[in-house]
């Protein structure tokens, strides 16, 4: 147990209550910072945004992207796990039958409402196919109207790249028969 008044002092000393010493002490601190910042910028923490930008950390959950298969098709198989787990209900998927029987199912439409999204990352956790990721390192850009934040499969795939993960439906040993 620490008694804070004992540690930090209870009453003002005569010197302190004269305003002068404490004010000068404070001024010396701010003056030092002022000189440091104008002359050297060594200890400056501010950035000249937008000329200077601070990169987001690796784990930053930014805009979603849809990953692609080796042949450039969307990796997502419309399993709806992300739509199920999303606390903001911002993912809408319409599933369809794929011509290729090895893929079988794919999203005809996959849209995310970036205004509703809370960037919690649960959809990435829930994806069993490494199809959706939030590692673009970008935040949503301002838009003129709400529809601008309603992102479609095409836009999400533009942000996407090839995935290195080996996916369940298609395994290395998945030959025919």
């Amino acid at each position, binding site marked *: 147990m*620490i*008694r804070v008044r004992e540690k930090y002092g209870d009453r003002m000393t005569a010197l*302190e209550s004269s305003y002068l010493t404490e004010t000068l002490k*404070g001024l010396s601190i701010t003056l030092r910072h002022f000189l440091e910042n104008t002359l050297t910028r060594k200890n400056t923490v501010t950035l000249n945004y937008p000329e200077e930008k601070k990169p987001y950390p690796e*784990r930053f959950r930014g805009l979603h992207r849809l990953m692609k298969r080796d042949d450039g098709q969307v990796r997502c198989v419309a399993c709806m796990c992300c739509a199920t787990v999303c*606390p903001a209900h911002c993912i809408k998927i319409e599933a369809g039958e794929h011509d290729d029987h090895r893929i079988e199912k794919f999203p005809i439409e996959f849209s995310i409402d970036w205004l509703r999204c809370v960037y919690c990352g649960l959809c990435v956790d829930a994806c069993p196919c490494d199809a959706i990721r939030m590692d673009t390192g970008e935040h949503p850009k301002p838009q003129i109207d709400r529809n601008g934040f309603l992102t479609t499969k095409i836009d999400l795939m533009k942000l996407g790249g090839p995935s290195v993960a080996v996916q369940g439906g298609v395994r290395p040993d998945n030959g025919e028969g």
Partner: protein
Amino acid sequence: MATPETARDPLDVDDLPMEPMVLKMGPSHPTMHGVIELTLRLDGETVRAADVEIGYLHRGFEKMGEVSTWNQVFAYADRLNYNSPMLNELGYAMAVEKLMGVDVPERAQFLRVIASEISRICDHLTCVGAGAMELGAFTAFLYAVKAREFLYELLEKISGHRLTVNYMRVGGVWLDMPDGWDGAVRQALTDAAGVMREFHKLVTRHRIFFDRMEGVGIISQEDALAWGFTGPCLRSTGIDYDIRKAHPYSCYDRFDFDIPVGDKGDNYDRYLIRLEEIEQSRRIIEQAFDRMPGGPVVSSDPRVALPEKGPVYNTIESMMNHFKLVYDGIRVPPGAVYSFSEAANGELGFYIVADGTGKPYRVRVRGPVFAIMQALPQMLIGGMIADIVPTFDGINMIAGELDR
């Protein structure tokens, strides 16, 4: 402090009748930390009566909890006390784990404590910084925010976001700390401590600050208890009650730290306690890094934690496990528990009821500020109108956890 007796000279009243005045402060007054409304009855500049109207930020946390899965609630819990999301998550996670009887791995416990204490420091920094600013010390506020920025960056590095962290899960945490994070934390804490020393020099012993804090917003020990105070506000009255010591949870019993207490129950005490708790949190974090064990960061119980991605992609067993956890959610056995932890403002309690399905039957949050805010009129009455600002700040009302 202006007492009612000195506020007006009885002689003046005779020829200049005082006119009582009702003043609405808020719902979005600049010094109101969240949206609340104070209705004040003033006698000159003296507060004679005060009422608090809350609920402007009610988002239906408890109702939303009933239609979310157990893990989805974390996203909402973040937004209770938005200055210290980790502490809310820890409180909620502990409640679910208590109900399920899940063991959380050592390393996850340590990471939780570290993340929580960083959050606590952030919360206190915001409180003292904003308090200084509202009394005119804008430079000091910027210093506090600068120190907080160092810590937010740490939270961002480990969880991906600064405020809406969504870092904890039932049974552990999302990910282990990134490489070099411990060094970054120690460095940031040192930097922040340097900044705080300057902050301390700027305001703590400055007479303007001192005079406006000392002896203002006094609450007695008995009153504090009767109103259900916890946290720094209770400790400012001299009661050394801290849940981390009184009912140690997670792994707090392994760390050596002190509980700061005040004497008078005034704003200055509350300010000093927060200042000191920042120091104590730093001690805890440093000890935690020194003793950090290895191992997994999330429970290995397949009924609780999502399996690793590798097996999910490649084996049907993990895939099925994954699916069941995603669409069914974690199945928490029927029952009810009350679990509580020491949040930045006091006792954060979660009373949760499960009915055996993947969604909570009821999630109840007992936000610390809710109890404290009811005593605000008592702390204001008799004081000057200008005293509202430091007193209100000393309570550190966060509308997120007040209105839920």
